[in-house]
């Protein structure tokens, strides 16, 4: 039996972390969350619209007895803003978990390494359990670990691109060298992408668009759950060695007498 993934006080049996964005409806989101088997979902923090009196809000669709909430600092471009956003999230949601995102560029949504490290240090000092989104750079990940982050979350590909793991090699190096959990964040577009990530030995996968923008998000959530479990099991089972040549699955002796060529 696999051991649960520990992040701060959380003990997660599901190694799939999912978002709440871009779903056709909050009802579909709710069913997709159930199908995914996730225990941790991300939310964003935004100004309330004072003119909009719409009744139900996102939190009405999140059963917090079932799902822990992971607020993010998406959209922030400086350490200062990310820190304030995290503090507001903590006050709002009563959690010290934070998915730290400090974006360096609005088009690629790649993180700004220097600002992310600065924000991480300050948030750790302030008592947060920090899960930073970061480029797939072993050094940046090591610096974030040194800063006291509870995990590192290198990107597999740009947010929302669905390109899969563009560089499995760098993710493997990061995992090999990390002393905190490694969570692949962003890039997963289909089930095999998630399986490939888990087979590298990473501890979990975080995704949003890959599920939310599938033609059938609920079915894709089920696919992602199975893919994460499959990749994890394959990693633990220890795959066969690759061989450059064929090797028969059936005995090579005891064949019937060959027909005599005319």
């Amino acid at each position, binding site marked *: 039996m696999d051991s649960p993934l520990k992040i701060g006080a959380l003990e997660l049996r599901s190694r799939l972390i999912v*978002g*709440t*964005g*871009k*779903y056709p409806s*909050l009802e579909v*989101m709710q069913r997709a969350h159930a199908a995914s088997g996730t225990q941790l979902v*991300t*939310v*964003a*923090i*935004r*100004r*309330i619209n*004072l003119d909009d*009196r719409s009744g139900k*809000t*996102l*939190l009405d669709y999140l059963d917090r007895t079932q799902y822990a*909430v992971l*607020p*993010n600092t*998406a959209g922030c471009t400086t350490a200062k803003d990310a820190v*304030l*956003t995290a*503090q*507001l*999230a903590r*006050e*709002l*949601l009563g959690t010290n978990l934070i998915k730290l995102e400090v974006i360096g560029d609005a088009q690629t949504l790649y993180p700004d390494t220097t600002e992310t490290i600065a924000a991480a240090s300050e948030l750790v000092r302030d008592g947060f359990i920090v899960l930073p989104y970061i480029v797939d750079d072993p050094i940046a990940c090591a610096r974030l670990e040194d800063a006291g982050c509870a995990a590192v979350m290198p990107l597999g590909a740009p*947010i*929302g691109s669905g390109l899969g793991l563009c560089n499995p090699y760098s993710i493997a190096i990061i995992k090999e060298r990390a002393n905190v959990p490694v969570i692949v964040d962003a890039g997963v577009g289909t089930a095999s992408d998630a399986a490939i990530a888990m087979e590298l030995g990473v501890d979990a996968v975080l*995704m*949003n*668009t890959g599920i939310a923008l599938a033609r059938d998000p609920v079915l894709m959530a089920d696919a992602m759950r199975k893919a994460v479990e499959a990749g994890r099991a394959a990693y633990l089972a220890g795959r066969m060695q690759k061989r450059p040549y064929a090797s028969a699955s059936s005995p090579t002796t005891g064949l019937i007498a060959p027909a005599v060529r005319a």
Partner: protein
Amino acid sequence: MKTTVNGEERALAEGATVASLLRESGLASEVVAIAVNRSVVPRATFEERALAEGDAIEIIRAVAGG
């Protein structure tokens, strides 16, 4: 007095507090968090937290995101 709420100018009565602002905005205090001049105001102190001329107030909530 003049303040800024979520980036827009807003005139508040003298003696306004975070709590009174929320009430007049029709917002339940448990669905929002508040920062005044970039420091967070604990929910427990909304009633007593007075607002002043020129305060920059942020009222945020949780929304769908990844």
